[in-house]
């Protein structure tokens, strides 16, 4: 019996890793195919009608568009393994350098938002689950629906008007890469990101607390007279965290989406800003590289969150995903 369980468990990890690698590989393929979806020739679109044949050929090779589709694909995948994502068409800088230089502020923004988001969402979700009929719960639900349906960039602009322009307690734009200095630029955008994050996280967490409350062991704990804090932390929060963490891959996607928007509003030198710049200047290699990195990042978070939630909650993981 014991051996059976351990075999199922090691099988589970193998399946998780293999499936994540397969998804990451297809993510790369999707990023590769975006450029090839173009109706017409992207080279002609960039250069216009009057381009010389040499210029066309040069750009074609810069974009990785020379040779047939299979050759292009093999070159692309080969480049990936060497950490080569091509060269930006507009700035002639390697795409990897662009990503490395701009990912720091974005990661900082995501980290600060996640910390605030978790610190607020866990107690909030717990409260919403334990007091479903209170007036406060109803108003919190209303506010979170309101916040969820306010577009992030609009919320960001309103926050800028209030905190930066009217009150003058936040910088209007910019960033400082040194540690304590960055927080001055981060707190407002992070709060705006939380405007989307907290409603999602707290609802997910509330639902899992509700499910935990229905389990027998929580009742048994009350009957046994477990101390109050221990009941909350060990019997409610911990088992409820696992389903929430398992959904982090999904939440990470949303978080990145709102980070891209918020960066643009706050003039933040992050990877989202680079993506938007690359899209507007038709810098295809950069677009391709950044889209790829975002996709792989989410695949990674999804795999990690599944692994962590399996470790926390021994009820799951017995069946293969």
């Amino acid at each position, binding site marked *: 019996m014991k051996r059976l369980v351990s075999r199922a468990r090691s099988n589970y990890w193998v399946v998780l890793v293999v499936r994540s690698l397969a998804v990451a590989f297809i993510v790369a393929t999707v990023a590769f195919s*975006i450029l090839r979806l173009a109706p017409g020739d992207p080279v002609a679109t960039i250069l216009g009608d009057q381009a010389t044949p040499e210029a066309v050929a040069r750009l074609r090779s810069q974009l990785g568009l020379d040779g047939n589709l299979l050759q292009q694909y093999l070159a692309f995948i080969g480049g990936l393994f060497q950490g080569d994502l091509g060269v930006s068409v507009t700035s002639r800088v390697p795409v990897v350098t662009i990503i490395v230089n701009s990912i720091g502020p974005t990661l900082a923004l995501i980290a600060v938002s996640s910390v605030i988001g978790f610190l607020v969402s866990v107690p909030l979700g717990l409260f919403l689950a334990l007091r479903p009929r209170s007036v406060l719960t109803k108003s919190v639900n209303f506010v979170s*629906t309101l916040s969820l349906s*306010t*577009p992030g960039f609009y919320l960001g*602009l309103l926050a800028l008007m209030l905190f930066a322009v009217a009150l003058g307690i936040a910088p209007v734009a910019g960033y400082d890469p040194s540690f304590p200095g960055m927080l001055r630029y981060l707190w407002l955008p992070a709060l705006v990101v939380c405007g989307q994050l907290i409603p999602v996280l707290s609802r997910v967490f509330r639902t899992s607390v509700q499910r935990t409350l229905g389990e027998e062991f929580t009742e048994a704990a009350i009957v046994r007279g477990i101390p109050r804090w221990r009941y909350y932390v060990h019997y409610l929060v911990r088992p409820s965290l696992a389903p929430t963490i398992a959904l982090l891959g999904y939440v990470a*996607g949303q978080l990145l989406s709102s980070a891209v928007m918020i960066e643009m509003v706050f003039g933040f030198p992050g990877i989202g800003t680079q993506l938007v710049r690359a899209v*507007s200047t038709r810098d295809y290699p950069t677009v391709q590289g950044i889209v790829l990195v975002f996709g792989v990042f989410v695949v990674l978070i999804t795999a990690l969150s599944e692994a962590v939630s399996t470790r926390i909650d021994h009820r799951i993981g017995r069946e293969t995903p």
Partner: protein
Amino acid sequence: MKARRRLDIEFLLGAVGLAALFLASFLVPLLSPFDPLRGESSALLAPSGEHPFGTDNLGRDIFVRSFAALQLDFVLAIIAVTASLVIGSTIGALMGMWRNSWISRILTLFVDSVNAFPFIVLALGIVAVVGPSAPGVVAAIVLTGWARYARIARARALVVAGSDFVSASRLLGFGRARIIRRHVFPNVYAESLAFALSELVVVIIMIASLSFLGAGVRPPTAELGAMISEGRLYLTTAWWMTVIPGAILAITALCIQFVAEGYERMRKDV
């Protein structure tokens, strides 16, 4: 047994608000004396009796412009959601029916990969290639969004395919095509429709977001996100250029969200 459906207040509020906004988005541009695209007054007038929402930097009436923009957003969002719903659910249902074929397995991985991208990032990537325009935005959203429906439809089709009534139809000797058409599709679509309603909020915000980033509907066409973006330069001098189109967008999204959440609650109650 037919349970009584309790209409909840939020659903009602959302539905009435949505209907009003939808009507206004078609009536206001028809009835207003002003043109949404041509500047006919002085620039940057504050809200007044003549221009309830003020005028923008080119002297265009923001009242008529906002509702013309809302109309465009409604139309684009409905097209995009319908197309993703039909394409995604159909592919997903077929994937669920042939779950053991290798095509279905590869498609499942493909759907997971498309879903792995943050929605706006993949949409931006596609817009970069197809070009910023109204059809470009719809194409980007459909090419990204179908996979979400496919995932849901596949899960639903797996359940339906294992159900008694499908086994019964199979025992009766009905062909696969008939089973799919008569039993699987209707069940799958019912589930996906509820999801489509909540996706409508996401999509309408997405269209505005892409346009805000300059990767969607381009000026001078009236679009809420594009209007907010145009107003950014006048944030301190003419707040109405940004705040009002944004408020209309947020109220619209809120109404749809109320309808979607209320519909979900009513479905659960029954």
